[in-house]
């Protein structure tokens, strides 16, 4: 049951969605290949959930085309739904059903699917199989939601903010589940505003802002587009005649970009070992004393900042 002619799992062309005068999605196009994990990345209100819900057939688009598994919504809805697994943002499953009963209920909706007990085991809830949903922790509830999405043995899995609000350990457990699903060569569409999540799970990402795709590619490509893989962050002691400015450092060797941010200067560099010695000299020669210096790998967060001038979680 692969898409006909090996086409994309999802193809979106000039998708738009308005709520009254508010345009949530303003002309989005992308294609998701079968077997990849595709991330929709962006701050709250960027249009991620709206886009995903259109792809899930839960919202009609205002205009544009969305093809899922080679089919169109409105014609073959039930056929598409048979092959989709969906994990909505914040679904509260019935508190009075047991874990096993809940997964079995969702299994019953699909023509073909997996043994509920196996799926409960896969998400690590076998010991909670007889527990009421209302007694589960947040992380356990989220894993149960993933189990309900997996039990129909989908070809395409949608995860909308699957780890928002979870503790680090629960997040890791959900990531492992997605990894396991990817290993079976199935397609995943994931929305998130966590950069580490996108870098860890996604083969390709589209960065969304204000209802538009502002960048698209593999996490690696997007980070490379900054011109350097590394970031040096410095801060200087206060008290000089003026602050240290980005322009003071832009011409140092291997520096690709400099911007100021909350008391820091952030330098994007290709080779930190080439930059650091001249950087220290320059700071001292301008009469400043360093109060901190840190280096790290550039992340998708830096990509977002360089594209929009804002942080992902500012909003």
């Amino acid at each position, binding site marked *: 049951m692969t898409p006909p002619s090996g086409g994309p799992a999802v193809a979106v062309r000039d998708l738009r969605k308005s709520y009254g005068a508010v345009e949530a999605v303003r002309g989005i196009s992308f294609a998701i290949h079968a077997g990849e994990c595709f991330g929709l990345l962006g701050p709250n209100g960027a249009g991620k959930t709206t886009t995903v819900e259109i792809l*899930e*057939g*839960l919202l009609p688009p205002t205009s544009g085309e969305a093809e899922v598994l080679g089919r169109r919504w409105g014609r073959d809805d*039930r056929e598409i*739904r*048979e092959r*989709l697994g*969906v994990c*909505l943002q*914040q*679904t*509260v*499953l*019935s508190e*009075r*059903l047991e874990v096993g*009963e809940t997964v*079995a*209920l*969702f299994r*019953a*909706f*699909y*023509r073909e699917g997996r043994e509920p007990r196996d799926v409960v085991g896969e998400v690590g809830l076998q010991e909670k199989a007889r527990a*009421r949903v209302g007694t589960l922790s947040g992380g356990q509830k989220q894993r149960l939601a993933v189990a*309900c999405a997996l039990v*129909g043995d989908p070809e395409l899995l949608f995860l909308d903010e699957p780890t928002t609000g979870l503790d680090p350990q629960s997040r890791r457990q959900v990531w492992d589940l997605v990894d396991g699903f990817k290993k079976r060569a199935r397609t995943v569409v994931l929305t998130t505003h966590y950069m580490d999540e996108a870098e860890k799970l996604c083969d390709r990402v589209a960065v969304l802002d204000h209802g538009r795709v502002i960048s698209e590619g593999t996490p690696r490509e997007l980070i490379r587009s900054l011109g350097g893989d590394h970031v040096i962050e410095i801060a200087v002691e206060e008290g000089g005649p003026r602050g240290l400015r980005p322009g003071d450092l832009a011409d140092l060797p291997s520096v690709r970009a400099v911007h100021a941010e909350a008391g820091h200067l952030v330098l994007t560099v290709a080779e930190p070992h080439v930059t650091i010695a001249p950087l220290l000299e320059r700071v001292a020669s301008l009469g400043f004393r360093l109060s901190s210096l840190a280096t790290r790998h550039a992340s998708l967060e830096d990509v977002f900042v360089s594209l929009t001038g804002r942080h992902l979680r500012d909003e």
Partner: protein
Amino acid sequence: MSDRTRARAFLALCLARFRESYREPEVLFWAFVFPVLLSAALAVAFRERPPEPSRAAVLRGPGAARLLLALRKAPLVVVEEAGPEEAAHALRMGRVDVVVSVAADPAAPVEYRLDPSRPEAGVARARVDDAVQRAAGRADLVPTRDVPASEPGGRYVDFLVPGLLGMNLMSAGMWGVGYALVDMRIKRLLKRLLATPMRAADFMVALMTMRVVSTFAEVGVLLSFAALALGVPVRGSLAAVMAVAVLGSMCFSGLGLAVACRARKIETVSGLMNLVTMPMFVASGVFFSVERFPETVQPAIRALPLTALNDALRAVTLEGADFVSQWPRLLLLAAWGGASFALGLRLFRWS
């Protein structure tokens, strides 16, 4: 979706709904315990009592002694002597039902002061007047005799139990379907279900089916209690009672769906529920007969589904009517249920 998958999905939905209901203690209380408690309490409050005597005050004055003498001998009249102000106050407060006064002149009329809108006042006037006329020498022209008749089926509690049954079917149907839907909508569970191959209509029908199935248990418990503990007669066949109850339950499940089809807040659906159910609680003959309302509003009250359900339930339990004889009322119930189900499904909002 094949028919087998569809049947399996429907049964799974019914089973999930059944588990959700019986695991909710409040549901069990309102469905089973509350109606029994209410009918027991009302049966005690309106138990058979000896007739209440009328209370009369005689105004102090020259003719008072004559009146007092006559009224003290009268059956079911309690009389006291009072000054004008005291008597007026007692009348206003409802402590006496009628104030009697007469001038010294034997030819002057006896005056009854009373509030004609109070039923007790009318009874008191009749009893007092009878005593006054007899004291003046009036005799009965026709001999009469009272035969006390209080058979099962004619008591207030007998009238009440079918009404409570109807009221309960209304509340359980509307809240059971309406509240559940809005709760699932708020939790986005409806949206999550929509994302599966499940059929929307199957989901609604499963919800209503489970409501109707629990009707059997609810009606069984209340009727058994009424029959065994309160001696309420069930003269029609149990099958006819159940059939009427099931139709009523379906009708109010449909209304529940219509009321809940778009609401996104529990407050909204609660308000709408009360708006729909309150007039029927009052007007549809749960606690007192519909006949008490003025003639002009009777057609409107008769058109309400709870009136039809209560009338049909009373006919089959108290009068032993069969199911078919109730067709106009059953047709009305089916029309209300069908129209509201269709409307609810058409306007339904999943998120």
